[in-house]
């Protein structure tokens, strides 16, 4: 066990790297032979970090991961900051001493880049990586720019961006002239007028919003309504993802409550004129297809999480639908467990209820969060080849049928440290969370600005997403706030 920090070579690696350098293959149970039980990554670390630094940008506008301290969690290896934390713990119990350990090294500069750990945490850079730096914007030099407002919000620049990003076309010469002739306040008003108009446009709703939904829905034509594959005259359609796209489009337009992405118990149709039609109750599968409707009883619905397509694609044949849970966590909360984001370990988990070996050291730290999420999905059918009409249905007996030991184990369903009774409640908790708001805002920020919020943009980004409750969780209102930011409007 090292007690000294190594030299500041990049990237700085502590201790157990030797496992990967000097063994030819991973030990079958890597970690056990490290020689000390202290040499584990601590899945509670990110949570502890944000309890200590609740106002840090990464705890507000981003997601703290194991990378804050670790180069690798399996086998375990620390960066310079993590090594310093480890040393500061001094062998004491992690959860009891982590807060004090973090505070005790605040004034150190663990990665040797010239800023103290505390300063880097406040900036949003990595205190363990000397290459994690923030370059401030250059001070404008030279003659005054006659065409752009350098270093300040430029209404004409913002106006053009609004028109292109949300209407899908530049302002015409005439429109640009008319805008230029307005005074400052009127220009700002005109930007919002243009945005309001654009947010009702076909481009925004049918083109841009649809595109933003692709990672959430992940359509596969071969299994959808447009499939070319027929069996005895039957389309192989197992579900129709157009229901998912319509629900997404509907809820992120028209000032509607975006939380219903996870709580809606209705579906959305569209008539020939393009008008939305809310459909309550179940929707049968179309004739000559194996799926394509929405057979799930409304009381078991949780918006995008329980569409027939989402359940089909992400549960498929799994008894414990971990992929479905991980997908929901990643796409709607912005927490990708495979990247060690959003780890919230539940005591006693993972139970390894289906004997998949997820309690092995390499798996347990993520599965202690993932599995308690997954259990709630276990009541929903993905694909049952002998009963294709069951796709996307709620079946209370399914966990017992598919998971030996389910009844005895009585697993608890937990999301974001809260115990819930079922998927509907789980989705409600997700929809109410700041992670949900932040993730939605982040998606729109990246669309509008072209990159993730940078350190000098985090404050205004936080202001945008934290206003969502006051704005009734309206995506439109969020976008109106977004186009007012410097990130959007300063050339």
């Amino acid at each position, binding site marked *: 066990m090292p007690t000294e920090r190594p030299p500041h070579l990049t990237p700085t690696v502590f201790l157990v790297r030797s496992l990967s350098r000097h063994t030819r293959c991973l030990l079958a149970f890597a970690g056990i032979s490290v020689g000390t039980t202290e040499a584990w990554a601590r899945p509670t670390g990110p949570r502890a970090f944000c309890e200590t630094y609740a106002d840090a940008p990464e705890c507000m506008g981003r997601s703290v991961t194991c990378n804050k301290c670790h180069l690798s969690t399996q086998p375990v290896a620390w960066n310079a900051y993590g090594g310093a934390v480890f040393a500061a713990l001094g062998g004491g119990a992690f959860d009891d001493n982590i807060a004090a350990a973090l505070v005790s090294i605040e004034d150190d500069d663990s990665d040797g880049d010239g800023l103290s750990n505390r300063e880097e945490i406040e900036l949003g850079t990595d205190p363990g990586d000397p290459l994690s730096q923030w370059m401030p*914007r*250059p001070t*404008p*030099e*030279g*003659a*005054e*720019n*006659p*065409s*752009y*407002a*350098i*270093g300040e919000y430029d*209404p*004409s*620049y913002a*106006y*053009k*961006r609004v028109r*292109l*990003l949300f209407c*899908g*076309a*530049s*302002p*015409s*010469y005439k*429109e*640009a*002239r008319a*805008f*230029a002739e307005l005074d400052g306040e009127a220009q700002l008003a005109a930007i919002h007028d243009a945005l309001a108009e654009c947010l009702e446009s076909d*481009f925004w709703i049918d*083109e841009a919003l649809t*595109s933003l939904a*692709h*990672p959430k*829905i*992940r*359509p*596969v*034509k071969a299994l959808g309504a447009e499939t070319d594959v027929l069996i005895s005259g039957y389309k192989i359609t197992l579900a129709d993802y157009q229901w998912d796209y319509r629900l997404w489009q509907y809820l992120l337009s028209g000032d509607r409550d975006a939380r219903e992405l996870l709580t809606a118990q209705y579906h959305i149709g569209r008539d020939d004129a393009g008008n939305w039609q809310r459909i309550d109750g179940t929707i049968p599968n179309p004739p000559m297809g194996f799926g394509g409707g929405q057979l799930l009883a409304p009381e078991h619905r949780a918006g995008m999480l329980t569409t027939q397509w989402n359940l089909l694609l992400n549960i498929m044949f799994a008894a414990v639908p971990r992929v479905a849970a991980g997908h929901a966590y990643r796409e709607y909360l912005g927490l990708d467990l495979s990247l060690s984001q959003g780890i919230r370990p539940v005591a006693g988990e993972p139970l390894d209820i289906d004997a998949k070996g997820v309690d092995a050291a390499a798996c347990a730290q993520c599965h202690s969060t993932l599995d308690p999420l997954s259990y709630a999905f276990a009541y929903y059918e993905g694909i049952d080849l002998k009963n294709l009409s069951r796709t996307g249905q709620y079946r209370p007996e399914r966990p017992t049928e598919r998971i030996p030991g389910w009844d005895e184990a009585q697993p608890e369903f937990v999301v974001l440290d809260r115990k819930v009774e079922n998927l509907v409640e789980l989705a409600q908790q997700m929809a109410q969370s700041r992670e949900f708001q932040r993730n939605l805002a982040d998606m729109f920020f990246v669309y509008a*600005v*072209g*990159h993730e919020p940078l350190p000098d943009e985090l404050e205004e980004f936080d202001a945008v997403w934290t206003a969502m409750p006051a704005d009734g969780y309206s995506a439109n209102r969020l976008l109106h706030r977004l186009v007012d930011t410097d*990130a959007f409007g*300063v*050339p």
Partner: protein
Amino acid sequence: MIMRILLRSLLPVLALASGCRDGDAGGTEDTGADEVQRAQRGELQWKRNAALQRDLMRALELPEDGVCNELGRGSCTREIHHIALGAADPLRIGLYEPLPDTLVSTPIVLDRVVMSACVNRADLDRGGAPVVFTELDFGEAAPAPEDEAFAATVTALYRRLLSRDPEAHELTTLGGLTVDDAGEPVSAHEFAVLACFAIGTSSEFLFF
């Protein structure tokens, strides 16, 4: 120190004195003497395939299928080169989010799309009531840079493609497209296409 010069009432306002920033709409005289302030952020976005297609349709008044069809096999912007032009493609290659940056082939593909759109517009204007190249006589050689038809054509293209008036130096530079390498006048049709292409493939047209 913004100068604007009014050439004619029907022609662009190029650079007469004006005290305010001209935004996107008006031209400014660039003397080249001073380095102007550069953007502080400079994090430009680029027109993705749909916006590019729409802007060309709007600017050149072309129907959707009149912009670019690749070797007669499909839409350049929607089917063949959509990735290089910044689109996602969830169904074919599982690309669920568009690429953040342009690819090696992006400028080449942009050349093809804009060239095709410009040719199509010039052909339509030559064959019927002109819409964009209203001042050109397609049966003749390109107008000389000092001709009104030249300034009117360039101005129309700037207004349509860049939503602003051309600068004086831009008019001068584009004058080079009225002749070939040997100094011989090109045809009016060639001039129309080349000027449209040069402006429509500029970084100012693609980025915002």
